[in-house]
């Protein structure tokens, strides 16, 4: 048991450093390591005392490789500090193991919720409104991110109090949440395909004497079937080995320019 007990001012400081400074030092060698040290440095100094060998040892520990989702990182921080406050330098191994053990799963789940799904859903709403000249959707997204940041803010203290148990109790809810969010993501992609890919068949081969309106025939079968087919094609292409999203963008660019220039497809 060390002598220092974290208080609300500490949590505030850690959260501010996390929200505004966690990834400034990101680099290929140790990724978020220096950010991790930085955002708890004042607290480490209070726990171990300035200039002590324990402090140096722990500072060195926290400059080791670290990488997780920066939307979940303070959960790890909370658990870490609860241990260090309780056990001091004796908790070093525990802390190092816990950090390495948890960072992977939080990276995966955090990225899929906060770096893929939420930006996809709100980005889609914002973009579809922006397309009609309406900036409101942009502010809706900003509002949503404020909610997210509140969430990032509160988790530190919860994690500090609950300790490692939290991880197991959270698991099920998080899974259900991710699942529901991805369901909505998939639904929205379907909706976006139906509204945001505005191309049509311009090619009208003359059969007998009348031009065949291919687009209208497709519309009769299923409205917006062409966008669905295009998106399906790109999806299939992305599954090919060695394909990257940047490559895919350029392939589609070239194909679309060609088909557009030849008058086969046109803007709807």
């Amino acid at each position, binding site marked *: 048991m060390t002598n220092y007990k974290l208080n609300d001012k500490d949590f505030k400081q850690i959260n501010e450093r996390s*929200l505004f400074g966690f990834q*400034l*030092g*990101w*680099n290929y060698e*140790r990724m978020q390591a*220096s950010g991790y*040290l930085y955002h708890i*440095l004042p607290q480490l100094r209070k726990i171990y005392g*300035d200039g002590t060998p324990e*402090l140096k040892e722990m500072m060195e520990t926290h*400059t080791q490789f670290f990488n997780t989702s*920066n939307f979940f990182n303070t959960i790890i921080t909370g658990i870490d500090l609860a241990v260090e406050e309780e056990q001091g330098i004796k908790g070093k191994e525990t802390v190092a193991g816990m950090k390495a053990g948890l960072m992977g799963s939080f990276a995966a789940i955090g990225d*899929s919720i906060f*770096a*893929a799904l939420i930006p*996809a*859903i709100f*980005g889609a709403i*914002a*973009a*579809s409104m*922006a397309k*009609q*000249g309406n900036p409101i959707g942009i502010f809706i997204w*900003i509002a949503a991110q*404020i909610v997210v*940041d509140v969430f990032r803010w509160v988790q530190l203290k919860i994690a500090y109090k609950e300790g490692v148990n939290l991880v197991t109790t959270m698991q099920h809810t998080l*899974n*259900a949440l*991710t*699942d*529901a969010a991805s*369901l909505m*993501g*998939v*639904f929205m*992609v*379907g*909706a976006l395909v139906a*509204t*945001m*890919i505005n191309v049509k068949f311009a090619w009208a081969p003359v059969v007998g004497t009348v031009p065949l309106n291919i687009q209208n025939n497709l519309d009769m079968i299923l*409205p917006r079937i062409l966008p669905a087919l295009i*998106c399906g094609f790109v*999806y299939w292409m992305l599954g090919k080995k*060695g*394909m*990257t*999203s*940047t490559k*895919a*963008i350029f392939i*589609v660019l070239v194909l*679309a*320019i*060609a088909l*557009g*220039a030849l008058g086969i497809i*046109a803007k709807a």
Partner: protein
Amino acid sequence: MIAWWQIVLLTLYAGYQILDELQIYSSMSAPVFAGFFAGLVMGDMKTGLTIGAAMQLTVLGVGTFGGASKIDANSGTLLAVAFSVGTGMDPNQAITALGVPVAALMIYTDILARFSNTFFAHRIDAQVEKFNYKGIERYFVAGALPWALSRMIPVGLGLALGGGVVNTIVAYINGPLKWLGDGLSVAGAVLPAVGFAILLRYLPVRKHIAYLLLGFTITSLLTTLFGSIQNIGTALAAAPKVAAGLGSFNGLSMLAIALIGLALAIIAYNNSTSQPAPAAAASTKQADSSDEGEITDDEL
């Protein structure tokens, strides 16, 4: 053309947005916001929103995972908006002719930034040994510099010097290469398909295929209906006597569609949390199936 103060504002924003994205993630670092901002600065919000929206859709769901560099649609948007408004280039063409290529090129400066920060990491090690707390913090915060410059330099230079090149492009695609201009417009309309497809690759699409179908079908039917009515409303404007009695007709509200999606998601969430055991099984399945969707990312 583009005024010096516009260049300054856009360049400052280019620096700001990468720091925002790395940290607070306010969504003011998203292409659609970049378009909005650049539109305001350039005095043509509508063009800004149009380009921002298209770029947003093109990279929908492309996050930065595990430190992988991604196509920088924000910077691409800034240049596309600035030159589209500045030179009168068609916004749809600006997206494909400027926005996307610039966004792709900026992957390299992102890599540079991530690289140069290694230097600061080693300085921090040294300060740790000396118990120099201020030093640690200084060298850490200094990491903001490479990050910001990695965007400000290319965007600033591009805005200041790119005018000539862009003018030439515009002249060509409105003149001898008109077919290319047309093609570029079409490409701008098709590009969002890539964003959607990428996103589907990251999502457990097989598991939720039913919702893909629902989202697509419901929206395609409703958007056809709303569109037809708008279409009729516009046509009737040619008959003033009749049109007098008409209100205005809007397109399908995407927020409404999103609310339907949200409702379905909540129902699924409640279902899965109300049955402890099977839900656990389902979630492991989902983990698997999302693996299957992974794609090799953009380190080029």
